[in-house]
């Protein structure tokens, strides 16, 4: 991935879709080849993949380019309590701007979506259903294909936040049936500042542009303009060429490993972590107990030690954990905790890392005299 970035900057650093010189042609070819690869990786066609900054930009693109045309006063927007702020706040803003109302699907005690509440909200013909493929706190993997099918029958447009799923499991957006699917490069061994929004072609074509400017137009007159074809309609200005190419290299690496293997490794590490860490005094974790119902993350608390204090102590042992509200304050409130610690496992983690974390937690218990 790093070589791909450096290769672009050192050998063919040039803008895309403009110049006829060799460097420009090479840059365009590499950028579009990366689009092909990344699209295939998530089970869609290149023309349905818009390169964006990340999941947050993707949901906001939908908010502006789809939402402002399609959502009206009194409409119902549905999201869930397990969402990252990036799949809540854009819909709050959309609701405020249009006069729509936003409702939340609650959770069951084991950290899964409340199916009855979802059914009830679907019965009210929502305009939008926004849901995480996998929760960044609970780790819960939602049956998004089923949710998308039900939402479609209810007449709703679906937005699936795949930021926590694409890095950890095989994803096939077309068979899932989501209208929009968003993900971020930095969680899947790619660069920061690049991600993808997959949209159904017919939905993308009906949408307004997001940013106005260069490259997103077909023709510009003094009083109006016409728009470029999708996905270019949504990629105004100079795009993030290097990082898109870098993401393509990350996807090559993951594809070579095989996402089935990545998923098996993920479940095995989670299983070992849950078994091992539960033996530490005061350890309690959030989300489903079955590792196969989870992906990637394991959020927890230790006795009465605040996660930031815990993170400070673990940092000294060379262990980096995320601590805080995880950009999921409504979920923290539901769990009735101010914050949580999170071990974010990936393909490079081994059982030895879990053992080191266990020793670190025991050390924290000593420091805090638990």
């Amino acid at each position, binding site marked *: 991935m790093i070589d791909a970035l450096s290769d672009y900057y050192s050998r063919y650093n040039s803008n895309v879709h403009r110049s006829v010189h060799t460097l420009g042609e090479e840059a365009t070819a590499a950028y579009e080849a990366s689009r092909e690869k990344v699209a295939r990786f998530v089970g869609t066609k290149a023309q349905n993949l818009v390169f964006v900054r990340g999941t947050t930009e993707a949901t906001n693109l939908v908010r502006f380019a789809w939402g402002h045309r399609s959502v009206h006063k009194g409409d119902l927007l549905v999201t869930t309590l397990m969402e990252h702020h990036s799949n809540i706040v854009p819909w709050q803003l959309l609701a405020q701007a249009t006069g729509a109302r936003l409702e939340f699907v609650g959770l069951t005690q084991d950290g899964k979506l409340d199916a009855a509440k979802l059914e009830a909200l679907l019965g009210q013909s929502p305009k939008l259903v926004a849901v995480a493929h996998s929760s960044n706190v609970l780790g819960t993997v939602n049956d998004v294909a089923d949710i998308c099918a039900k939402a479609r029958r209810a007449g709703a447009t679906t937005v699936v936040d795949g930021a926590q799923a694409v890095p950890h499991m095989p994803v096939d957006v077309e068979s899932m049936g989501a209208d929009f699917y968003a993900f971020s490069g930095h969680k899947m061994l790619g660069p920061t500042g690049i991600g993808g929004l997959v949209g159904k072609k017919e939905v993308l074509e009906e949408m307004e542009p997001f940013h106005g400017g260069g490259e997103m137009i077909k023709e510009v007159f003094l009083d109006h303009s016409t728009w470029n074809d999708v996905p270019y309609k949504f990629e105004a200005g100079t795009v993030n060429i290097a990082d898109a190419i870098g993401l393509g290299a990350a996807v090559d690496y993951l594809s070579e490993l095989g996402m089935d293997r990545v998923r098996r490794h993920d479940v095995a590490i989670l299983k070992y972590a849950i078994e091992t860490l539960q033996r530490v005094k005061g350890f309690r974790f959030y989300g489903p107990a079955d590792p196969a119902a989870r992906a990637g993350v394991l959020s927890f608390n230790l006795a009465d030690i*605040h996660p*930031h204090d815990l993170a*400070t*102590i673990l940092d000294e042992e060379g262990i980096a954990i995320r601590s805080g509200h995880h950009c999921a304050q409504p979920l923290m409130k539901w769990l009735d905790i101010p914050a949580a610690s999170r071990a974010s496992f990936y393909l490079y983690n081994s059982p030895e890392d879990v053992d080191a974390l266990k020793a670190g937690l025991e050390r924290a218990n000593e420091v*805090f*005299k638990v």
Partner: protein
Amino acid sequence: MSTADIYKELILDYYRNPRNFGTLQTFDIEAHDTNPLCGDEVDIQIKVGEGHKIEDIRFSGKGCAISQASASMLTELAKGKPLEWVKELSKEDIFKLLGTSDLGPSRVKCALLGMKVLKTGVYGYLGSGAEGTEPAGPS
């Protein structure tokens, strides 16, 4: 010194048994702030007595040991002092209370949250804007 050494007996004691924790029935000053990075919260209430003195003070909140212990220690120090004294208060005073300044940039914000709230409340009461407080980082 090891970073974990900041969790001295004293800080743990104030974290688990915070002094001046709670609310006042009547008060003249109230201020609240959060540290969005940690989700630390501190509320401070003050009853102003004769000669603009801090007659009584309580804090409430939730958060890490450093934020809660430093807020609690600060209320003990502030009690009985004139309001003007709050203007003199500096981060070095807080580090002295905690017995360490070896905190790192993000944890310093935890340590100074109580002082920020106290200054906000008292400066508001005295009719001038809070100075010397840093804006919180993005969250």
